[in-house]
């Protein structure tokens, strides 16, 4: 294959995914139709994820007014927001609850898109951008977890960063140093401290949001250009206009979800699920309290990591990431029935590990 043909096929690939003739309001909005069938609810999961991201941005901006990213001030400033800022505890709770909801919806969106085979040509770029968006969302969760600078935040981050370094033990030659370099880059000093907090803060409030917005732009543009995927094997008999029937429904759903989020944030402090010793300000001289664990959305990898050898999880994670990125090509010929079955299996694993992971781990330990 000559260089010329590679360039030509790449150009054709991009041209097919972003056809210039479709880059107008008429094609992308007015003409757009949304199929109506039994899996139609799946079309709303992406919008909901974006809605929770918008809540994250707004509440995060309010929190920026008061939060101090220094080891001496971080926890005090969070306490100040909770206790003395008008509506501070509500805003902080909305930020915490919506972060969990965003991750839940992002995973649900990925699973439904997979089951509906929404990744086939010409939607490969939409899929890959979506997978990258999911990874960024998880990174948001990881970096945001440290910011309150309490016992669980710092100790869980220590464990998380240490896990990155372990990867080096399984890599050959000079590659073995790469995970250590990555950990040191994120950590910034010998142990988790001021440099780590500063770097995580920069990642959480500047680098990740900018990356996410850029990728989200690409993802949404791609969705609008190609429209909603068929979603089911037989073409849907009914369809509805994106503008304004689908938008109507989407906005109404957002309004309902906002009310639920507002009520829950008003009534249940997110941290009340954790034992209070874990919420105490981090004490570098004190002992590590019992019960340190990551946020619930990492349980699917955390508990297996506790039960199985590290290399098993590492290998499984690498395969999973590879399969997710290459899904449009690996599952190109798979039927929706097969994809649906795989989705059910994956969902079962996620639900069981998230809800019963701790019990399974206890059983395994004894």
């Amino acid at each position, binding site marked *: 294959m000559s260089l010329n043909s590679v360039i030509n096929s790449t150009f054709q690939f991009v041209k097919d995914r972003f056809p210039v003739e479709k880059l107008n309001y008429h094609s992308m909005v007015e003409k757009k139709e949304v199929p109506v069938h039994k899996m139609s609810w799946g079309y709303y999961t992406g919008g909901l994820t974006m809605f929770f991201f918008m809540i994250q941005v707004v509440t995060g901006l309010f929190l920026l007014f008061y939060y101090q990213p220094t080891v001496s001030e971080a926890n005090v400033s969070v306490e100040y927001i909770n206790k003395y800022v008008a509506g501070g505890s509500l805003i902080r709770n909305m930020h915490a609850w919506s972060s969990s909801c965003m991750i839940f919806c992002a995973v649900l969106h990925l699973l439904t898109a997979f089951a509906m085979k929404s990744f086939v040509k010409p939607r490969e770029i939409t899929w890959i951008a979506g997978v990258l968006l999911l990874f960024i969302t998880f990174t948001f969760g990881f970096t945001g977890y440290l910011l309150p600078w309490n016992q669980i935040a710092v100790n869980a981050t220590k464990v998380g960063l240490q896990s990155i370094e372990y990867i080096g033990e399984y890599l050959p030659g000079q590659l073995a140093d790469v995970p250590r370099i990555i950990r040191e880059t994120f950590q910034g000093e010998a142990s988790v401290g001021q440099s780590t907090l500063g770097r995580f803060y920069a990642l959480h409030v500047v680098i990740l949001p900018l990356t996410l917005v850029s990728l989200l732009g690409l993802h949404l543009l791609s969705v609008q250009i190609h429209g909603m995927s068929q979603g089911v094997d037989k073409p849907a008999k009914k369809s509805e206009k994106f*503008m304004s029937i689908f938008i*109507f429904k989407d906005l109404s759903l957002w309004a309902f979800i906002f009310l639920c989020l507002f*009520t829950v944030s008003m009534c249940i402090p997110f941290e*009340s699920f954790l*034992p209070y010793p874990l919420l105490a300000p981090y004490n570098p001289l004190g002992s590590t*309290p019992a019960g340190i664990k990551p946020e619930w959305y990492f349980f699917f990898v955390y508990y297996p990591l506790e039960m199985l050898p590290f290399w098993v999880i590492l290998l499984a994670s690498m395969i999973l990431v590879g399969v997710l990125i290459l899904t449009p090509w690996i599952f190109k010929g798979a039927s929706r029935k097969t994809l649906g079955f795989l989705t059910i299996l994956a969902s079962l694993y996620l639900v069981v590990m998230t809800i019963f992971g701790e019990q399974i781990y206890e059983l395994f330990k004894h």
Partner: protein
Amino acid sequence: MSFSNTETVENSKDLKQIDLKLKTNLSLIAFASSLALSFMTANPAQAYPEYQAFVEKNSKRSINCAMCHINEGGPVGNSKGQIGSLSEEELKLLSKARIAFEPGSDVHSPILNEFGNKIISAVGKKKFLEYKTSPEKLAAALGNESDLDTDGIPDAQEYLDGTDPLNKFHGEPVKLFWINLNRCKTHVILTVLAVISINFGLLSLVKGISSIKKK
């Protein structure tokens, strides 16, 4: 020989002196030990792990000494809120708290937090020590009137739930939900109305844009 006799005499004098010194030192040590022992027996300087074990078993939540003490590590040590760090004035307050055997005393122990002082004040040291063998009785003795953090969950219930009785943002989530929903119902109703209005406005806007485009 004489030399040795003289030496023996001198030696015996020395031995007597040493014996005397030893006796004095021993009696001093014995006095100090008995003083320390009597102080420790009368004033145990440890927290009461029976309560912690009960709460953790009952609530299935891990807790630490900070539920009742100022310092999360308990009362022994030199850090803030621990006996070793107390001033003379604070030691007097501590002694006063330690003899508050009956309920109703004004207790301001410098090693206890507000909830710890409340317990001693409400049930008295005597009963508190009795409940060590049945820590569940402490909740009943505390009653449901006191709610130091004003989160709506009584302190006694927070003790049973293993949640922080001094933090209004910490409590059993389901209980907090119903209490706060009841407290904030006006806010919730107003928000429902606001969201419905905004949504109606937005939908009308979308409808308008859509009809303009059609024309």
